[in-house]
């Protein structure tokens, strides 16, 4: 009865996530579409960052949401949709990567990162196409798993504990990987940000 009443309420940007999930679980396709609209940008960006290819990321994004739709009834923590979707996306992404056996995995674990990196100049941070390209290249230079962990934290705002669950790592490992990725990224971006010494 409550579900029937809930269906009468129109969906808008203020509709709580939990309500959308419940309604989507009840078979309301409009609610699932609303969840898609809210999270597709994040999911696609994450997949693009991990897979490094636009069309493949598009395909993986669609696969992520098809799987999410099929597994929706299993989602119990309705407020954590984003982490749940990114977890599915992570599985899809690494399945894609395993399928592309010719890809060489970058291993930046031993890169020299201990040098003191000067601060960036905030005035240079207005992102233009060239800076965006440099940033993308710097991200691409990280290993896929390390890059995934970094973007999950800095781009998608997941907590370290969530990333540990999602990646299947220990918490100290997550902190270490993100720290190393961050230093590597800063080192790569420094020449493009006009840093002060």
């Amino acid at each position, binding site marked *: 009865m409550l579900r029937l009443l809930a269906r009468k309420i129109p969906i808008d940007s203020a509709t709580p996530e939990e309500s959308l999930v419940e309604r989507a679980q009840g078979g309301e396709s409009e609610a699932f579409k609303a969840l898609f609209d809210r999270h597709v940008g994040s999911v696609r*960006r994450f997949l693009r960052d991990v897979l490094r290819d636009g069309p493949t990321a598009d395909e993986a994004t669609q696969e992520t949401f098809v799987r999410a739709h099929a597994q929706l009834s299993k989602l119990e923590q309705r407020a954590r949709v984003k982490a749940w979707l990114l977890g599915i996306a992570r599985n899809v992404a690494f399945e894609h990567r395993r399928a592309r056996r010719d890809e060489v995995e970058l291993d930046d674990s031993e890169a020299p990162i201990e040098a003191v990196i000067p601060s*960036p100049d905030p005035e240079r941070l207005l992102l233009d196409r060239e800076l965006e390209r440099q940033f993308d290249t710097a991200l691409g230079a990280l290993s896929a798993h390390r890059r995934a962990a970094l973007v999950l934290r800095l781009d998608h705002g997941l907590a370290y504990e969530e990333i540990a669950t999602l990646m299947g790592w220990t918490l100290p490992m997550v902190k270490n990987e993100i720290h190393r990725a961050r230093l590597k990224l800063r080192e790569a971006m420094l020449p493009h940000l006009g840093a002060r010494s």
Partner: protein
Amino acid sequence: MKPCPSRLQLESAVLGDAPAGRLGEYDAHASSCARCRHELNWLRAESALFAQRHAREEVSRLWETVDAKNASKRGRGLTRVMLAIAASLLVAIAAGRFGSGSRGGPHKSSEPVPMSLEMMSVDQGGSGELATMPCYTPGFGIACGEVEYASR
């Protein structure tokens, strides 16, 4: 001067995970602490670099394929249900038609059906004579051999 916050504390503040006002406290601290100022500068730079990518995304075009695949899966699920119902009905009909000989269906048992002599007599055109007839009817399981009946 307060002790320096940890890198994770600074990060939480910049990413908006920390309580309101915490970032202001850290900024005040950083104004006289080069190490924290440096870290906050970088954290803000990273945050800006990531945030500014969001505006360039155009992803609504991906919905149609997702919706079509979901609809296809729903359709397949419905088809499976319909097929299961149809199969159940067929089984039920078949069981009703062939499952019980007592309901008028053909008797498939190899056991002879008990019949009276009258049942097997055939009047030949009112002549009063009973014809000879085989008591075996192929396909009906009546196998009692040939019987000859005398006239009444």
